[in-house]
């Protein structure tokens, strides 16, 4: 009798992986699975808990008769209580009398469960979760029950795994895409970036970022969170935000990385990440860089062989409690290129790292001037078969010579002013202006820009445009334009602003059209003031 029932139960078990289940999304699959397990074993409750990416916590994902377990969002540490012990030992656990057992999750008692049986969800020997069933009356689960539940769990593990991978992949892609920055557009620095998600099931935590700092300098970062999966990608998102926040506070690159290392240890002890962070003055070319265990950035000066920066060794973020990251200073003159990359771009499993680095150097040496083209070429040459088991990130910057005239657009925000002044200052310097010309004209232009920012747009976002040109001889014209509505300047400092513009230039013209207002500042340069 018993064996006949057993064979029927086994047949029922086949249904756990039948074709109908193959098309269900994860939630539907788990739900259906638990319904069938309850039926086959004749129990009152069943639940599935899945291991988080941090490998230390179980989270209930679906339940029958124990729905509160899912709804309350409880997190069960590996090794603790009933489910935690199953995951830690990778072995089934039977409980005859719940009242006498070590239980972590109070819901099990609240529901009045008497007996429990749980088995690990195993995939290729790795624990991915726990499947358990329970009864409201005492029941001594026998070896056959254990075997049946374990078989159900094995089949479930396979089905869940493919769904999870698919979904994680979608989530990670979406996260990665949402975190790809809009690169700043600067007249003095060209930027281009690439992110390549891993081809295999292993999901990555690489990122790159570029942003303008409050003082007008440019911050550039590239990083790689060690580990894979959606969790690593989520940590990446937090580090990226943390880096920006510390950078905006004005810390030097080494200081930013020291804080970021502490942040990572706070978010998740034991997790490490490699990062390179660079601050570039787009108008003077001064560059400060700090790295935390990251592959060496590459620099190419026009006419010279590209070289990898020889920086002293450094430890990854999060690796040690007390850590110092030093700033290294260099100069990025017009025409020079800086290439930041993650190891996914240069590492291939089958060959030494140096081969990948040499290929990187050769490709940059022979590569196009245009950074978008160079980016495409680098990806084609370094990853000819597409990304492998690791994701890859690439960020390139080229310092651009300023031309005969400049046209630059800035967000209509006070914070744009220092960067605009530095750009104009560098251009004036290249145009042969004296220090006094530079000081006076940049201050006059800053006043015109401040006027536009404070009065043209109200609270709406807007744009301020800078034009600067010479008449081919010694007269410079600087135009500051807005595209908002004119409002007479208010407050005494705006009145002083006009006074300063007039006092520091030879001529000030304000041209108002239906499209906005342009302030034209004219001054002869290179003339010693009398």
């Amino acid at each position, binding site marked *: 009798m018993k064996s006949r029932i057993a064979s029927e139960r086994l047949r029922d078990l086949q249904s756990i992986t039948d074709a109908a289940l193959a098309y269900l999304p994860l939630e539907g699959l788990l739900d259906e699975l638990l319904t069938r397990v309850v039926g086959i074993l004749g129990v009152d409750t069943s639940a599935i808990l899945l291991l988080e990416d941090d490998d230390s916590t179980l989270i209930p994902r679906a339940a029958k008769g124990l729905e509160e377990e899912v709804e309350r969002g409880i997190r069960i540490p590996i090794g603790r209580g009933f489910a935690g012990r199953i995951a830690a030992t990778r072995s089934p656990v039977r409980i005859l009398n719940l009242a006498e057992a070590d239980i972590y999750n109070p819901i099990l008692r609240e529901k009045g469960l008497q007996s429990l049986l749980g088995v690990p969800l195993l995939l290729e020997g790795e624990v991915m979760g726990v499947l358990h069933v329970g009864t409201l009356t005492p029941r001594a689960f026998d070896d056959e029950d254990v075997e049946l539940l374990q078989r159900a769990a094995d089949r479930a593990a396979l089905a869940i795994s493919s769904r999870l991978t698919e979904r994680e992949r979608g989530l990670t892609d979406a996260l990665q895409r949402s975190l790809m920055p809009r690169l700043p557009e600067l007249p003095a620095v060209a930027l281009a970036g690439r992110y390549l998600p891993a081809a295999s099931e292993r999901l990555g935590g690489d990122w790159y970022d570029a942003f303008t700092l409050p*003082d007008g300098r440019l911050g550039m970062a590239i990083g790689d969170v060690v580990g894979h999966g959606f969790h690593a990608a989520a940590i990446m998102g937090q580090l990226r935000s943390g880096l920006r926040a510390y950078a905006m506070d004005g810390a030097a690159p080494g200081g930013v990385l020291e804080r970021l290392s502490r942040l990572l240890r706070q978010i998740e002890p034991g997790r490490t990440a490699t990062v390179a962070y660079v601050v570039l003055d787009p108008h003077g070319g*001064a560059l400060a860089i700090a790295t935390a265990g990251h592959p060496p950035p590459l620099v190419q000066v026009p006419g010279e062989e590209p070289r990898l920066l020889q920086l002293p060794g450094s430890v990854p973020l999060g690796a040690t409690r007390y850590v110092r990251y030093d700033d290294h200073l260099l100069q990025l003159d017009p025409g020079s290129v800086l290439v930041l990359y993650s190891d996914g771009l240069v590492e291939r499993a089958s060959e030494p790292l140096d081969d990948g680095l040499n290929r990187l150097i050769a490709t940059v040496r022979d590569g196009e001037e245009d950074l978008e083209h160079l980016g495409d070429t680098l990806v084609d040459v370094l990853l000819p078969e597409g990304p492998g088991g690791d994701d890859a990130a690439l960020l390139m910057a080229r310092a651009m010579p300023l031309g005969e005239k400049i046209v630059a657009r800035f967000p209509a925000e006070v*914070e744009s002013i220092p960067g605009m002044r530095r750009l104009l200052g560098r251009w004036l310097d290249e145009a042969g202006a004296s220090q*006094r010309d530079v*000081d006076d004209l940049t201050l006059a232009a800053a006043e015109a820009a401040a006027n536009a920012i404070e009065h043209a747009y109200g609270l709406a976002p807007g744009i301020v445009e800078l034009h600067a040109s010479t008449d081919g001889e010694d007269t410079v014209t600087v135009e500051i334009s807005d595209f908002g509505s004119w409002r007479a300047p208010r*407050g005494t400092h705006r009145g002083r602003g006009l006074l300063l513009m007039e*006092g520091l230039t030879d001529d000030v013209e304000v041209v108002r059209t239906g499209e906005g207002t342009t302030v034209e500042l004219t001054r002869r340069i290179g003339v010693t003031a009398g």
Partner: protein
Amino acid sequence: MTPGAEANVEYHDTVGVVTLTGEVDIVQAHQLRERLLGAVRNEDLGVVVDLTRASYIDSVGVSLLFELAERLTERQLRLAVVVPKGGLVARVLGIVNLGSVAELHPSADDAIAAIRGG
């Protein structure tokens, strides 16, 4: 090269000396204003603002000095500003005629002595 500004306050008996360093501009004005106005103590005879180490000052920075002058005048306190000769800061303060509301001096010692001397 690093822009930004700082305000350091020291007291020489009954004279507060505020040294402004860096760029006294629209970006920094907000935080400098608090430091500047907060430096005035009730028992002081006056305040010295030392611009020797300021590389830049715009109309918002200038307005800060005018506001300080106005507040000090209300309390019958004096304002002396230390202006290095010949630079951008001196040209700016000349154009806006800061001399109409504050005494201008070439050094901090001169400025402190002037306020003490009444």
